[in-house]
């Protein structure tokens, strides 16, 4: 680690938090210019995150030293709060920045109503700030708070169009979130009561496989599963994501859910690592398989474009669950999971954005009546298809690399002698087919012979941003090595 980096990195981390907060507060206080503040803020945050990642990667290849901890207010743990940056959080920060920037640009076109703009931007910037803080948090209670920031702003964003479906979805989302958060909080309390510290690293050194930890693990995991819409606790997701405005759906499916999953991963890699048992892995894996099948079937059934995409999220998160038993056999597999989540987030966000464009143009998103618009907007359909291909896990996209690595891990399990590994392999391999089926449902009408009707005009942002993001998702395949190497800079993780 060069001295300059050592000096700058902590400041840059705190600065990122500060910057996102400043932007959010500014937009809240000055709603009339919220969109301008938002745009500038989005650019600034993205630039900052990229700079941060450059600093981080330059800091040196030593994984143990790679985690940078920043004591807020000068108070070290256990007294104070520590921000925590390592490879894992860095990756997710970059992901957030990319999707966030795309969403911001898209929203410039999508949220054009003056009033709506004033509602949307502050909430969205708070959400972004919340995500940044979530990924940078190294403290159990602080995680709860940031999770709340994220959840609440997400709920508000879901509701902000005020349609019946949106409100109903938002309320369901809100209640589920509260249930999940409280469950998480209860777990935090249990841990604190047992060990008297909240800092994750300190907790990690103190936990062993005791009943309190077990209970805390159950509470926190279940709560986060609820928040991450992991099967069978996914039912809130489709109404919420399906009825939210497109940029919001993109962020929800791409980032917010991923954030909850990130927490699960982080906890099980650190604090709860001693608790994991094969049976636990198998249960979670089974849930993942069920999620894959169920989500895909529902996506094949759903009649509305965005519902399909929302259910696709349920299905795709099944992969993340399936990865748990793999991680028990091959601890290194966690990086694969994260990479998969990253790629999924990119692709899913662009699918949602594309769907939003189509919905905006057609005035609805009923798949059966969408053919005309689909035919008239090849660019958007192309984006949809390209991102869809990434979701299917076909080359040359990032999804392919992710699927490859997952499959590799799965087959590794089988080769290591695990019988149930065959199931994981089948699920990983077969999920792509189901994905292909529902993606095809969305794309195929564009190829039907029939009328063309471009529908309502859309702004250029809405036309090009989905395509750009889809391209990023596709080209993420090239960033595979970089991402995995970055993730390797996570201390404590195998």
């Amino acid at each position: 680690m060069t001295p300059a980096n050592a000096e700058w990195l902590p400041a840059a981390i705190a600065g990122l938090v500060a910057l996102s907060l400043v932007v959010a507060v500014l937009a809240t206080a000055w709603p009339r210019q919220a969109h301008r503040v938002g745009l500038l803020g989005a650019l600034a945050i993205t630039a900052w995150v990229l700079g941060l990642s450059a600093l981080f990667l330059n800091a040196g290849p030593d994984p143990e030293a790679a985690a940078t901890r920043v004591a807020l207010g000068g108070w070290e743990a256990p007294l104070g709060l520590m921000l925590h940056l390592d490879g894992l959080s860095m990756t997710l920060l970059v992901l957030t920045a990319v999707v966030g920037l795309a969403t911001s640009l898209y929203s410039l076109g999508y949220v054009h109503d003056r009033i709506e703009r004033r509602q949307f931007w502050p909430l969205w910037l708070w959400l972004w700030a919340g995500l940044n803080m979530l990924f940078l948090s190294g403290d159990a209670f602080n995680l709860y708070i940031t999770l709340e920031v994220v959840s609440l702003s997400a709920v508000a964003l879901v509701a902000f169009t005020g349609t019946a479906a949106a409100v109903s979805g938002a309320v369901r989302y809100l209640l589920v979130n509260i249930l999940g958060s409280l469950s998480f909080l209860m777990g935090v309390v249990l841990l604190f009561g047992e060990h008297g510290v909240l800092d994750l690293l300190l907790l990690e050194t103190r936990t062993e496989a005791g009943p309190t930890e077990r209970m805390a693990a159950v509470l926190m995991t279940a709560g986060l599963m609820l928040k991450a819409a992991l099967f069978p606790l996914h039912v809130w997701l489709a109404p919420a994501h399906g009825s939210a405005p497109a940029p919001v759906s993109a962020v929800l499916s791409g980032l917010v859910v991923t954030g909850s999953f990130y927490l699960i991963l982080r906890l099980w890699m650190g604090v709860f690592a001693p608790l994991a048992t094969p049976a636990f892995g198998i249960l979670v894996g089974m849930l993942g398989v069920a999620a894959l099948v169920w989500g895909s079937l529902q996506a094949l059934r759903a009649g509305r474009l965005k519902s399909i995409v929302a259910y696709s999220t349920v299905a795709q998160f099944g992969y993340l669950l399936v990865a748990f038993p793999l991680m028990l056999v091959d601890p290194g597999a966690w990086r694969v999971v994260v990479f998969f989540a990253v790629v999924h987030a990119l692709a899913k966000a662009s699918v949602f954005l594309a769907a939003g464009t189509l919905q905006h143009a057609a005035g609805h998103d009923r798949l059966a009546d969408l053919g005309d618009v689909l035919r008239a907007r090849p660019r958007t359909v192309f984006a949809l298809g390209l991102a869809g291909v990434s979701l299917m896990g076909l080359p040359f996209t990032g999804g392919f690399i992710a699927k490859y690595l997952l499959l590799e891990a799965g087959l590794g399990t089988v080769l290591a002698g695990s019988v149930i590994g065959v199931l994981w392999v089948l699920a990983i391999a077969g999920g792509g087919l189901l994905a292909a089926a529902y993606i095809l449902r969305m794309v195929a009408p564009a190829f039907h012979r029939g009328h063309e009707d471009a529908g309502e005009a859309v702004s250029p942002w809405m036309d090009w941003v989905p395509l750009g993001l889809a391209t990023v998702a596709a080209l993420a395949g090239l960033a595979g090595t970089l991402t995995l190497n970055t993730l390797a800079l996570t201390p404590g993780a195998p």
Partner: protein
Amino acid sequence: MDGGWLLLAILFSSLGPGIAIFFLPEHRQGLRTALNLGGAGTKLALVGVLLAGVLRGDEYRFSLPLMPGIDLVLAADALSLLFASLSAVLWFVTTVYAIGYLEGSPRRSRFFGFFSLCVSATVGIALSGNLITFLIFYEILTLATWPLVVHRGTPAALRAGRLYLAYTLTSGLVLFTAIVWLTLLAGAEGFTPGGYLDGLAETHATTLQILFVLLMIGFGVKAALVPLHSWLPIAMVAPAPVSALLHAVAVVKAGAFGIIRVVNDVYGTELAIELGLTAGLLVVAAITIVYGSIQALRTDDLKQRLAFSTISQVSYIILGVALAGPLGIIGGLVHLVHQGITKITLFFCAGNFAETLGIHRISELDGVGRRMPLTMLAFTLGALGMIGLPPLAGFVTKWHLGLGALEAGMPWVLGVLVLSSLLNAAYFLPPVIRGWLGERREPWHEPLQAHAGPTRFETHWMLLFPVVFTAALGLLVGLFAGLGLSPLGWVSLIVRRDYSLPEFGL
């Protein structure tokens, strides 16, 4: 990384124009044509340069890390160039043809965009340096072809597209799994003549056998091996240039090429024989050859007959590879080229008949030779070539395959060849005879003239030129098979290098 830029340039010479075309407004016809032909021409020239370089003995290689330990590798060896030059040449021709064929039809930007993408993928497959790269381009090919198959947008086309995707994606998945597995076992090696799995033969024999079956299922769908072939004849609803490309250059060939790569450069023929893998493949190929021919006999639709014929003919390639001897492999490899040239001629002709005179069925062909002599001549050359009559391309193949079978000590394969030739004749001669010797009583109705006005030649020149060109090519590669630069000469070079045999020519 020496000269890797050349490989990239070859790849991008179609990819770049393809993407540009995709975003081109529908009415920019001139620019689109220029892009199309420019890309095709550039590719042709670059492949020529590459060809010369490889003949000189230069190494071309490009690699890009994808995942830790796994690279995307493009490399040019003699075998890859064989396929690459085939696709470059035929792409050029098909582009000309497609421009003529689709004149005035809607959504050409989309069509040509995917068309170019398709060819890029094919060239990528040709130039792949390892299995993973191969897989990547293979799957891209699947995806890029689908829009072409459903291009017409009719319910039948969409159903065909669905079936196509169902088959190819499933097989892709099987392939994917197999390749990951193989890479886990043996690492992400590049293609090596003679294979790179020798070290595993003793410890993992059964696994290798299973993997081989999986790989064959994976490639077999595209190569239309028999239980996996159903998509191919149904995909005939696609426009003629697409069928031509599908059958002659891209999809089907990709499958066959994959099998060649696996047998020759992954397992190595020795290992494959040792594990008893080629015998099974041989049987499957033989069954496919006969089955495809019988099915072709049963249909009256011209394109469908051609499609079934493809099923049968592509298995010749696999047959040759499965014979696993130098002569057999020569037969198989050279058929890769020969079948491409011949089949593309036939599809062009079928397209010409359909486009110019609205003829789709063999029973309607009576007397067409008088109205469209050049096309009919080309069709005849193609058909006779498929039957395997000298001096056309197909004969050279059949000759080497037959000798290869004998060399491998499997005279029964000769029986298959005989039977297949008979069946080929049975389904290819009737259209030829009808065309030349049949009588047409009523006047032709001419859809092309109806919407595009009278043409100088028997049909639009952009439809005629490719036909004549490929037919002539089919004749020349057979007639001058003994030349060093002919496909046969090139293939002999490949096999000689691979087998380090000084002389075995006949």
